[in-house]
């Protein structure tokens, strides 16, 4: 019984709140633990390691003594979303520079297509107490998966003493965010808006409203996103409700509006990341979109037709967050790399390529007047990016103006699994309906 009781104070223990609402049955703590791989794994660990654990706190993953015991392995496995980091003839200049200065090799994997399915991929390893294969993963704050990882104790608390660049340069937009107060587990990779993109050749009077997505003029030519949290939030904006302050009855109103939009034949399809290809191909003329995609497409002369609209009702602001999954084999290397990206010189190179909202405001100056190694890197990327660095620096999409920030809306912050289920029950049938 001893290890079982200890379990209550372990970070591994599952928050019962997560179990609430998914079943009518009540679970005892013992049942809950025995049911989950984490519970089992940590039970075994606790049983084996309890004598030494009582001697030192070095066993508590993420504690400062634990961090001190870590050593550099000179390799880090980084899982990120596609087209999200500087690219020059098949290589990533920022990562190359990192390796040359620190001697840490970065294996960069563009394997995350959406939060839910990536979470499904790493979950079995985490539940079994094994290394996921990645030391850094990037999860969005607008989906429940980042919350699951934190609640289940599946993230390693960051070494706050290693966040020197972060403390100095992180912008107010992403510092100590509501989803991770004090940056205990995460550091932002980039942020962006979910807004409206349209083809300016076919849409002559876009207006300023989100209503363009519901306009019968574009019946069969409107793309919506298949992520229920994106779709629902846009629905809420369309019925004039702040998503962050919404209630279940607001969700029903939004769902009704979205159902109407679908039954009127306005929606062509509910897309994942592929919407941008369909917008380029002309299958759709108006679409829900991610801000950086439109900006990137726009830079390429072939797709000058695409324009980003940040509607007057507001645009959803999300943030992708770097975090270190539990059982990471190279946490110190991961920590080093994460803080490296908060160096304005480094961030200027990332931003020159990807055009999302920059987490480091000081990168703007570095784009205008590069002072270090980034000068050569930016110059060499110039021909492939195809525009002067000043354009990126002056873009209010990359370095948002105060008005832009004010017009940004936050996602609803789910308080329980029951709320997530209720949300899904409203919006999933729209996406998956016959």
């Amino acid at each position, binding site marked *: 019984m001893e290890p079982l009781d200890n379990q209550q104070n372990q970070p591994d223990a*599952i928050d019962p709140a*997560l*179990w609430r609402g*998914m*079943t009518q*049955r009540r*679970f005892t703590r013992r*049942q809950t633990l025995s*049911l*989950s*791989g*984490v519970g089992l794994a940590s039970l075994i660990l606790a049983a084996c390691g309890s004598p030494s654990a009582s001697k030192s706190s070095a066993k508590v993953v993420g504690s400062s003594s634990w961090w001190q015991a870590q050593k550099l392995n000179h390799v880090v496995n980084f899982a990120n979303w596609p087209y999200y980091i500087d690219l020059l003839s098949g290589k990533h200049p920022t990562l190359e520079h990192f390796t040359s200065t620190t001697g840490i090799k970065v294996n960069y994997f563009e394997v995350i297509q*959406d939060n*839910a*399915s990536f979470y*499904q991929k790493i*979950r*079995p390893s985490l*539940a079994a107490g094994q290394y996921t294969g990645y030391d850094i993963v990037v999860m969005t704050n607008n989906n*429940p998966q980042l919350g*699951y990882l934190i*609640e*289940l104790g599946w993230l390693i608390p960051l070494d706050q003493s290693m966040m020197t660049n972060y403390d100095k340069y992180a912008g107010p937009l992403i510092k100590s965010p509501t989803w991770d107060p004090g940056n205990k587990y995460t550091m932002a990779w980039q942020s962006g808006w979910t807004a409206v993109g349209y083809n300016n050749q076919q849409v002559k009077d876009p207006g300023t409203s989100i209503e363009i997505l519901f306009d019968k003029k574009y019946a*069969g030519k409107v793309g919506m996103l298949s992520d229920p949290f994106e779709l629902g939030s846009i629905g809420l904006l369309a019925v004039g409700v702040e998503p962050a302050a919404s209630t279940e009855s607001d969700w029903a109103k939004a769902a009704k509006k979205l159902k109407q939009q*679908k039954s009127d034949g306005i*929606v*062509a*399809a*509910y897309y994942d990341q592929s919407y941008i290809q*369909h917008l380029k*191909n*002309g*299958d759709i003329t108006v679409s829900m979109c991610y801000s950086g995609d439109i900006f990137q497409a726009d830079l390429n002369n072939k797709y000058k037709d695409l324009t980003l609209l940040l509607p007057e009702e507001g645009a959803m602001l999300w943030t992708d967050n770097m975090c270190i999954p539990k059982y990471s084999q190279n946490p110190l290397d991961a920590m080093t790399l994460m803080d490296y990206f908060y160096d304005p010189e480094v961030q200027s190179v990332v931003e020159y390529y990807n055009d999302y909202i920059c987490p480091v405001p000081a990168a703007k100056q570095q784009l205008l007047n590069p002072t270090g190694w980034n000068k050569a890197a930016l110059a060499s990327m110039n021909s492939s990016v195809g525009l002067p660095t000043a354009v990126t620096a002056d873009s209010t999409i990359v370095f948002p103006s105060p008005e832009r920030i004010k017009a940004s809306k936050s996602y609803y912050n789910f308080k329980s*699994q029951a709320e*997530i289920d209720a949300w*899904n029950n409203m919006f*999933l*049938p729209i996406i*998956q*309906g*016959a």
Partner: protein
Amino acid sequence: MSSPPRRHGAWRRGLAPYLLSLPAGLWLALLFVVPLLIMLSITLKTCSPASGACVMTWQWGELPHVVNQYRGQFVTSLIFAFVATLLDLVISFPIAYWIAFYGGRRKNFFLIMLLVPFFVSFIIRTLVWEFILSNNGVVLTFLRGNHLVPSGFHVLGTGLAVVAGLAYNYLPFTALPLYVALERIDRRVLNAANDLYATRSVTFVRVILPLAIPGIFAAFLLTFIPAFGDYVNQEILGGTSNTMIGTVIQNLFLIDSDYAGGASLSAVLLVISLLGIWLYARLLGSRTIEDYL
């Protein structure tokens, strides 16, 4: 004390078939029956979307709930798979017939020609269709440019695109069993029909077609069953009003973490498929099915 040698031998002989089928039996039990039972048991469990852990709660409500919720998608899948299978039969029968009866020495060459496109991955072929049929793609640009279709005409996102994709992707599953059935028809039977003054069309209807029935049925099953559960074509070529049950199952498992719901729908899908096979066995005997697999 010791049994007579003859009886011992008989006992061994009686055991032999069981021993011989043991490896296959174990294989089937371990890799097919056990996973199937696990899947069925999941329909009665409650799973946490966060940790993925499932607990047996004996809730019998999930199956009727999801079947009711996704009735429409089942119907869509049935219709799409049925129409696609019929299309395949109509398209591949003449091909199979021609190769079987007029292919001559080059039969194998023609068969390979039929199969070559299918050496390319299923997903890639479907993605290429998406590219070809897109609004600014080659085909529609040409048709619109010559005013052969109205300016708002589109193919992607429609049920038609999904059915066409299904029919295209499953064509070999129809053509090959048909070919096997037609190829096996004894030519002397046709000569006999000719000798008895049957015209070519009468020979076709009263001799060839009845002899090809097992092949047609096998072709139907081999096409219909995978098409019924398919989700790739609908995901890539379909739109909002033609979601198939395979897409729903995939989403329930991979996106929503609703394992009980996904397992329930899979079980229903399996039962419908088994009904088809049972029907085949009842009507045409179970012996013929392995000839086509």
